């Protein structure tokens, strides 16, 4: 089996590596790069725990091969924080108690981040649509939705203020 050379930019850092055709992006992030913030729940596209941001869009890293991401710019939960400062979404999830066990949280936040990047003033309906692929067994969804609303409005204020 021939390995394939790929280049990835992950959280601003460039990586080059040789991967097998069947290696999933999820496994490369977690096991080769040690970025274990991205979780595996189901491995079949249902739960969203593995959601990352690729070239500005939310995608499921369990449903992608690493070779398919060759050349891509990837953001994971580890890349959101700026130095010691949490991202407004992270702050809002904590502030609104939208985190209980936390297993779904990185995926929820990455899906929300992609939404806010493409639409700085999302409505509740848009947030629920964007999070429809993120299963949470703890919070009942209302708190994450509130947190995203709060983060979006804070980010707009900071930008304008």
């Amino acid at each position, binding site marked *: 089996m021939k390995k394939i050379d790929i280049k990835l930019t992950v959280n601003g850092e460039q990586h080059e590596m040789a991967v*097998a*055709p069947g290696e999933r992006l999820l496994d490369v992030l977690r096991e080769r790069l040690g970025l274990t913030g991205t979780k595996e729940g189901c491995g079949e*596209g249902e739960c969203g725990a593995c959601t990352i941001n690729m070239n500005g869009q*939310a995608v*499921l890293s369990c449903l992608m091969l690493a070779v398919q991401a060759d050349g891509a710019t990837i953001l994971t939960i580890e890349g959101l924080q700026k130095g010691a400062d949490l991202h407004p979404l992270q702050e809002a999830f904590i502030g609104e108690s939208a985190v209980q066990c936390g297993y779904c949280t990185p995926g929820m936040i990455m899906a929300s981040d992609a939404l806010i990047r493409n639409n700085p003033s999302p409505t509740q309906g848009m947030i629920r649509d*964007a999070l*429809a692929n993120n299963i949470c067994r703890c919070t009942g969804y209302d708190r994450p939705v509130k947190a995203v609303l709060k983060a979006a409005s804070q980010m707009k204020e900071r930008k304008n203020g």
Partner: protein
Amino acid sequence: MSERGYKMSIALKFEGYHRPANVDQAVKILTKYGNNAQVIAGGTDILPRRPGGNNAGNGKHLVDIVHMGLDYIREEKNGIYIAAAATINSIGAFPLFSQTPYLALSEALACHSTRTIRNRATIGGNLCNASPCADLALPLLVLGARLIVAGPEGNRQIPIQDFYVGTNLCALDSNEMLLEICIPFCEEKTGTSFLKLGRQQTVIDMALVNVATFLTMEGQCCVTVRIALGSVGPVPFRAKKAESMLTGKRPDKKTIQLAAEAAAEASAPLDDIRATAAYRKKMAVILVRQALENSVRRYQA
């Protein structure tokens, strides 16, 4: 592999990965490996984790068509051409499809999986996977789409109603790939509709029943009627007898009901873990009736 001494990762059992730069190269690779190769686009049908990590059942050599410029949607003289690797979300953003005649298509696009999956999932993958539940098959059946296929001898066209051969089996040869889908322009006054019944528990689900309808009229009577059903037989199909029961008739309540019953009669659903055959058949009547009512209303609006 892991420095921490445990290993969660699974390596799917693919042996080769090819990234052709153009259609010629892709067809050459498919020809070389025959049944041992499979096209990969978004990968959302191919890659979900399976017990044992063997997702390579249909070909150990992957031919990735995502980097070949096959993501356009454009209007030409005789119709709208959608490239096979266009993502569901990009098609959903094409302005023409939010106009009345194409609502069946935009409704199906919006019902397909979730926003996150639709960033990767493609129209070509949805059709070529040949699932009886594929949401996009139904609007394309009633819109009379043609599929343009590339192979070693050049391109050929397949009307969509001839594309489905059996469950997970389409009319492509192992050395062929789907290039684009052509949707003929609709007359401005056309009423179409798509409806999907899923399970209550989750929004992320394949259909239990899905239907699409298409209707044009002259005066009070129907001229062209098309009805397609999915998830209630081995392949998505047109219910021709039901269509003929409405053609030339007034689409009144009773005629619509009889046509909807005939459409469901043409189905052959299965019992499975998600629903019983009897339930699917009953719901098929209701969905076809509602879709036809939507079509009439949209035609008349």
